[in-house]
């Protein structure tokens, strides 16, 4: 290396040789192309259209649900509760690791089969590893008088829908 430098006085003066600048240009281009490929790869791997069920579930007419009842809709993964104050819906997906919970009418609790979390009918955790209560979901009446539940919209607890 030192021998080469003696032959190249321009390098000794601190100037960048033409070869070095091309190497830097090439590496820079590769870095830009690499970043571009990473962005393209991320975009490609993220689906733009999802053929997943709509988050809005129609659970039918309110009179399907008797007073003081909790009804599991396992297909939609929600509970419809008809309490004295009115209707509300809970997500049936356990807040621990996403298993589908089940209503145990004989115990009056919602229980998760995976890791033993238990919730009361307000969604409050009473036992187990779940870090959060079962979320309350947005419920409203459609123009046709059907109860609709938006599974993607979590609302603060204790908001009831009266019919």
């Amino acid at each position, binding site marked *: 290396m030192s021998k080469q430098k003696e032959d190249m006085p321009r390098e000794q003066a601190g100037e960048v040789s033409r070869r070095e600048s091309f190497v830097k240009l090439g590496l820079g281009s590769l870095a830009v192309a690499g970043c571009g490929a990473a962005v393209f790869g*991320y975009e490609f*791997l*993220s*689906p733009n259209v*999802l*053929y*997943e069920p709509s988050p809005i579930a129609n659970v039918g007419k309110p009179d399907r649900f008797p007073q003081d009842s909790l009804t599991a809709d396992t297909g939609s993964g929600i509970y419809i509760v008809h309490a004295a104050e009115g209707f509300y819906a809970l997500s049936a997906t356990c807040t621990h*690791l*996403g*298993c*589908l919970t089940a209503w145990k009418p004989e115990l009056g609790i919602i229980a998760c089969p*995976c890791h033993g979390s238990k919730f009361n009918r307000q969604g409050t955790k009473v036992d187990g590893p779940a870090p959060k209560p079962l979320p309350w979901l947005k419920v409203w009446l459609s123009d046709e008088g059907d109860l609709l539940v938006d599974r993607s919209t979590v609302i603060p607890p204790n908001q009831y829908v009266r019919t």
Partner: protein
Amino acid sequence: MAKTVESYWNDLRETRAWRSIFRGAPGAGNLHSALAVQQNVFLHLASVKMRRKSLAFSATWYLGTLTLATFMILVGTGVLLMLYYHPSVPQAYADMKDLEFVVSAGLFLRNLHRWSAHAMVLLVFAHMFKVFYRGAYRPPREFNWVIGVILLLVTLFLSYTGYLLPWDQLAFWAITVGSNLISAVPLLGQKIRFLMLGGNTVNANALLRFYVLHCVILPFAAILFIAIHFWRIRKDGGLHTGIGDSAKESHG
């Protein structure tokens, strides 16, 4: 005079066809043996010369070799299972049931694949315990331990992605739980989960992604790192036998 099996064998080794496939000249001796190993694409990853002890049947039953054996069984049975399995939501579970009850030898191949997979995970752990407690991870072999950890992760990912493919309740909820574990990664968790599943729920996209990972990407990754792992054994001075001190070996 009747020819012995060995003389037939030696005649075969001197034929032009044999010599065109196996480059080494016939004969015996150290150089010949070394060339025979070095000039074979499959054997060249191994050392040309090794201690008799490293080939002897030991109480630990060649744990690394057994792991490779289970991997090769998994590749063989897995390719055959692919001939009857469609990675789609309506068909996956039915195909798995067909393999068990309709396809000739399907039950045997599926069970062989399943039990070999369990055995491979067990053997990888046993192999790592042995390497750890025998001190075989020490210099000059420290980088091969790193390759081994990568292979452990590849093995676990292969096991995890294969778990979804039967598309039964166990598979569905196991992957639901597993993907929710990943979403606990700080900041990027939800993104990683979305990319891994190709959506927000364990669904058709997730099944297809796990299938491609299980059948193409992860096996190729495993083969690449297994090749590096075996090549490093040779470059790091052969199998660890506990003979000689490691400082001496690091110069060899």
